Every structure is written in C-alpha cells, then in structure tokens.
C-alpha cells in the first residue's frame, strides 16, 4: 500500500514537472510571438571595441581546420585588435601542419600546440587563456563557419559593464543530409530562435553554449578558468558568472554555421556527453544558485529549470514505467474518473506538444514553411534523446560520487578538407 502510494505520488510529481516545463515553453513561445523583444547590441557602432582573441580548440580536425581559418581571415574587425589562436590538442592527423602553414602566412594566427597534461576542451581553453592577449575571448568549435561580421557582433556587447558572456546562434549547415540532420535543425531552431531569445527578452538566463560565443578573459581567469573535470564547461561558466553578478546575453543576429552529427551513433554520444556534463553542473550549482544574492527570484527559478533540463527525461522515463506498473496493479485511477480524464487530456494536449509549439514558432519566425511538417517526426528523436540523456544522467551521478576523470570524445566531421 505504501509502495502504491509512493508510485502514485511519483506519477503526480512527474506530471507536475512536465506541466511546469510546458508552461515555460508556452511562456517563451508567446513572448516570441507577441511579447516585447529586447534589442541586442549589434546596432551599436563603436570605434573603440575591445581587443579580441578567437580561440578554436582542435583535435584531429584536418578536414575542417582550413575552412574556419579562411573564414576568420575575412573578419570585419580591426586587425590591430584581433588575434586567432587555434589549439592543436593532441592531434595525430595533419592538423598541426595545417595550423603551422597558416601561421607562416598570417601573423594574426598563433597556433598553440598541446601534447602534454590533460587532453580536452576545458584544459585546452585554460592553456590558451594564459597566452591570449585579448580582453574578450571568442570561442568557435572547429567545424564552424563564422561570417565576417560575427566577431564585431559578439564583441560589442562587452561595452555593457554587466555582461560577462554572450552566446550567438548556431545554424546547422548540413541540414539536408538525412533525417537526423533535419530533425536536429528543428531542435536547434526552437532552442535558439525561441528559447534563448525569449530568455533574453524576459531577463532570465540565456546559456553560454561554449561556441559562437564570448566571455571576458580577466573575469573568467579570476574565477579560476574552466573546470577540467566537467564536460559541460560552458554551462558551468554560465552559472559561475551568474553567481558572481555577471550577466549572460544572447545575440540572435550573431549566426554561425555548424555541422550537426549525421549518424545516430554520433548523436547518441553527443547528447550523452551533454547530459553527463550538464547534470554534473546541476549537482554542483543547484544549492549555490538558490542561495545566491546576485540573482532575482525569476532568475533563480529559470536557473533551476535550466539546470534540471537534462534530468527531466529520466524523470519522464521513470514516470512512464511507474504508470505502467500502476496500470497493471489496477491503481492507475488516482482521482475520480472525469477529473482525471480531463487532467490527462490537458497534460497530453499541452504538455507533450509544448516543445513542438516552440519549434513550430521558430520555423515561422525563420520563414521556413515546409519543414514544419517534420514536427511529428520529432517524436522519435524525443524517445531517442530520452534514453541517452538518461544514460548520461546516470554517468553524471557516478562521476559525482567517484570523482572519476571524464574522457573527452570529439564529434566526427563530414566535410571535405579545404
């Protein structure tokens, strides 16, 4: 009896959590459609922008290294205030040779070769921060293709004395490759065009995503640089900055192409890594976030929901198992018939489909019409994500309990080399 009571309680808890997130998705969607939109800083023209170091971590990136460097060499920024540090991080392919070739031709490109100490993005960034001259650090992953004006759009926000970090918008370039890339494109659209922008509009917490973004170098160094034990160093930086009174802003106009994973295996590794890293940050920062004197109640609420994002799928998975168990125990009817039916109908209609409203709205705002038809197929991606995010959560729990070292695995590239 007690067990049944617990199971019913857990089911109600799961429904409650999903309803909260559904409400959040709807608020964001309605804000993007009808609410006041905060302007970003990209319209500012200033001849005294800060000095910038662009850092590009690379591990075996010979396929794409030349592409991103070619793009950055066209940057519309004062070259007296710009340097580029591509990091050759324990590469065993031709990455080093490519970087040295570019460095010999262009003095603004200053490769950093790493073959000692810890491997991985956070450690690489920390080493680069020691030699970077710029006041602002802009980070791109190696597969990105920055347009000429993006450095300026990212750097200009640091005129605001409260801004500690900025995140731009990621747009997949290999959208049409297969079903997976098309679904990931939808996911990205919803996440940036609606979710991040709405959080910026509402004065909540846009997240620094670790690429197509920037931060103040001195601030991050003073805060201890990046934690090499956390896979989601970007999420960790977001919360560390917030807890020290800095803001993270979102630049919807700072768009940059990326490569999405093209195989389900690669996607599973990526989403599991994100979940593993993000949940470590959740464990480490939940209490400090709630205790922080630098954040308003709204920011704390959004911060908690943001931290919990990658544990909700596990809650849902367990909730599903719980409901099946209750069904076979003959205990599924928790309230009186009609009330419960209405409750479940509302939950199913609004709860399950809330993210789809967000993604559909993003497609509308992007001027995309036909790709909205793919929304139904996101259901399969949802189940796929739920499983691997849950696996990532479990690994994060073990990481926290055992303090084991976390391995860094890069994402495969699909482009042909330059």
């Amino acid at each position, binding site marked *: 009896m007690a067990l049944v009571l617990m199971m019913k309680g857990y089911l109600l808890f799961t429904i409650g959590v999903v309803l909260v997130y559904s409400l959040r998705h709807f608020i964001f969607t309605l804000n993007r459609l009808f609410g006041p939109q905060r302007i970003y800083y990209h319209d500012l023209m200033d001849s005294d922008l800060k000095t910038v170091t662009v850092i590009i971590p690379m591990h075996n990136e010979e396929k794409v290294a030349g592409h991103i460097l070619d793009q950055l060499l066209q940057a519309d920024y004062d070259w007296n205030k710009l340097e580029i540090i591509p990091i050759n991080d324990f590469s065993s392919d031709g990455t080093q040779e490519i970087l040295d070739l570019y460095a010999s031709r262009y003095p603004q490109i200053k490769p950093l070769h790493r073959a000692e100490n810890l491997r991985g993005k956070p450690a690489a960034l920390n080493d680069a921060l020691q030699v970077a001259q710029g006041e602002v650090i802009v980070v791109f992953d190696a597969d990105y293709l920055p347009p000429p004006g993006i450095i300026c759009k990212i750097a200009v926000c640091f005129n605001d004395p409260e801004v500690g970090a900025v995140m731009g918008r990621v747009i997949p370039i290999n959208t049409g490759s297969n*079903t997976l890339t098309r679904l990931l494109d939808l996911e990205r659209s919803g996440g940036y065009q609606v979710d991040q922008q709405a959080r910026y509009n509402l004065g909540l917490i846009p997240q620094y995503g670790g690429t197509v973004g920037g931060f103040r170098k001195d601030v991050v160094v003073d805060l201890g640089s990046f934690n090499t034990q956390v896979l989601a160093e970007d999420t960790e930086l977001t919360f560390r900055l917030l807890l020290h009174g800095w803001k993270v802003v979102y630049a919807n106009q700072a768009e940059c192409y990326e490569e999405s994973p093209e195989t389900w295996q690669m996607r599973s590794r990526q989403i599991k890594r994100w979940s593993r890293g993000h949940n470590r940050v959740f464990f480490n920062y939940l209490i400090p976030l709630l205790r922080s004197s630098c954040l308003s109640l709204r920011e704390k609420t959004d911060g908690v929901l943001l931290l919990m994002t990658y544990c909700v799928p596990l809650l849902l998975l367990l909730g599903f198992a719980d409901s099946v168990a209750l069904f076979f125990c003959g205990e599924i009817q928790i309230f009186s018939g009609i009330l419960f039916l209405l409750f479940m109908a509302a939950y199913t209609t609004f709860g399950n489909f809330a993210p789809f409203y967000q993604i559909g709205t993003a497609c509308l705002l992007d001027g995309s019409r036909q790709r909205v038809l793919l929304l139904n197929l996101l259901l399969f991606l949802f189940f796929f994500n739920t499983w691997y995010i849950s696996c990532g959560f479990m690994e994060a729990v073990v990481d926290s309990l055992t303090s084991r070292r976390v391995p860094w695995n890069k994402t495969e590239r699909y482009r042909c080399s330059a």
Partner: protein
Amino acid sequence: MIVLCCLLFLFLTVLPFWGGIRELIQKKDAAPLHIDMNYTKNPRYFAVSFRKILTAALPQHEPAAGLFSCTLSKPETVEIVETALINQGQTQAHVLFAKTSLVSGKQATFLKEIYVKERAIIGEGNQLRSLACDGDIRVLQGTSFTRWLDATGNIKVAPLCNLGLSATCTQQLSLAQHCRFKRLYGNPVTTAIPKKAVETPESSSLPFQEAAFTLPAKPATANQTRLQRDERLTFGSDAAVAGNQSHLGNIIALKTLFLGDGAIIHGDVKTHGSLKTGTQITITGNVFAEGDIHLGPEARIYGTVFSQGRVVCERGTIVGSSAGIKSIVAKKGIEFGAGIKVYGYVMTEGEGVVW
C-alpha cells in the same frame, strides 16, 4: 477482414506522419537557413549598394543624356541628365542620374531613386524615395524621404522634414527643428540651435560650445569613491550620485539612477531602470539602460548610449568625440533638443524627433 483492419491500422498510424515523410522525400525545405556570408556592417549600405548597382548598369564612359533601360534590382528606366532642374509640382517617374547637380522646386515628387554626382538642393515640400549624392545635400522645409538619403559631403536639413529609414553622410549631418528620423550617420550629427537662442547673450556662450576633447581628470584625492569588488559599484534600489561629485569606476543600478548637476563618472553606467541626469554631467564611458535615458542639458558622454526604452538628449548634449565613432541606439524612440552633437550613429526602432 483482418487484413483490412491491419491495413487500416497501418494507414492511421502512418497518416499523422505523412506530411513529414513526404517532406523528407521531396526535400522542399531542406536547405540550411540563410546566413549572408558577405555581410559587413555599414551604415551607408543602401546608398553604397545603389551606387554600385547603378554604375555597373550604365554605359561605362560618359553616358549620354537621355532615357536608358537597364536592370537594377529589376528592369528600370534611367533618365540621364547633365544638370537636373525639376520644376515646381513636377513628378519624376524614372530613376534619375544627374552628372552634375540637382535642384528641385517646391512640391516636386520623385518616384524612384536619384543619383547626383555633385550637389543637390531639394525644394520645399518634395516627396522623394531615395537620394545618393557625391557632394553636399541641402533639404528645404517640409520634404519627406520614404527610404534613404546619403551624401559623401554634408547634409543640411531644414525644419519639418522626414528623413525616412536612413540619412547618412561622411561629414556633418545637420538637422533643424521638428525633423523626424530612424537612422542617422554623420561626423558629427548635429541639431540646429534656434536663432533666438543664439541671439540671446546669456545662451550664446559655453553651454552650446563643445569642450575641447580632453577627458576630465580622474580624482586622485581621498574623497574619491571607493571601488567595490570587480571595480563595479552596484546599487540595489533607486540610487543617486550627488551633484559635482566625481566617481571612479563603473556604476550598475538595479533600479533608477539619478546623476546630479555636474557629476562626473569615470567609467560605464548601467541601470536596470531609467537614467536621469542633471545639467553638465560627464560620463567617460558607455551608458546602458533597460529603461529610458534622459540626459540633461550639456551632458557630455564620451562612450555609446544604449537604451531598451527612449533616449532624450536635452540641449547641448554631446556624445562621442571627433576622435572616433560612437552611437546612440534606443528601442522605443529618440528625442533631440537644440545644439546636440553625436559623433557617429543614431538609431531607433521607434521614432526619432528633433524638438
């Protein structure tokens, strides 16, 4: 019967996904979202682009006067003249290319773009779409632009003009009273001082003259405000900096911030509410506000001004300096008093107006 039911079941299962499956096969919308990989920010973008397109479309050397058909963004007829003299009330229906100057009478209408190689004088009450001029532009009273005007020289605008989406020039852009705008770019952008104010002795001296470009000296005495951690001073409620006080470091106010007469801030100012200042305040850095910004008379801002609300600049306010480019950007609107100087860019999503 069983087979029929199975088929029906399959059909109804697949039906909701049919649209998506069809799109996966047909790939009507499979291209990545467009990013313009050639775009760089240029406030004079419209005019530069128009000049380039028109010059490329016209005959290369000394095009003869007359009508000429070509394709710009779409098929157009370009009227080429040596000097354009547009009579009162006349309507110019074609794209106009004047190899020297343009002078228009009152109430003339220009339905298409204009490119003038030397100078342009636009008469009173004219209606124009766009004007690009390789010299100076003078716009007389009551004229309206629906799109943009641009000069590689100076632009001088008389009262009651509407400057459309963009008015830009490489030198001084002068606006008289009751002009309306969205975007301005000039070195500097100025608003006129009413004649009456100029003639009145007590208002004709220092208040409307720009101080020499030297930043005020940072306080070195013991009464300078102590810096908080991170060199930022954060106020949790409405805050004020007293008049004639000097503050070293950035200020962040979570609500409204008041700066008294003569206050000097050596740093940036950010407020989550509104910012209101007295007269003759100085801010050596940038100014940001989630609410409105109201700069009192003769305010001196050396950085950029950015507001999610409105920006009001009372008489004699100066933003930036001749040494560089700065901006005023406001989401909801901008109001300029007399004798304003902005070295660089002014932009609002709402309406800009000169009192």
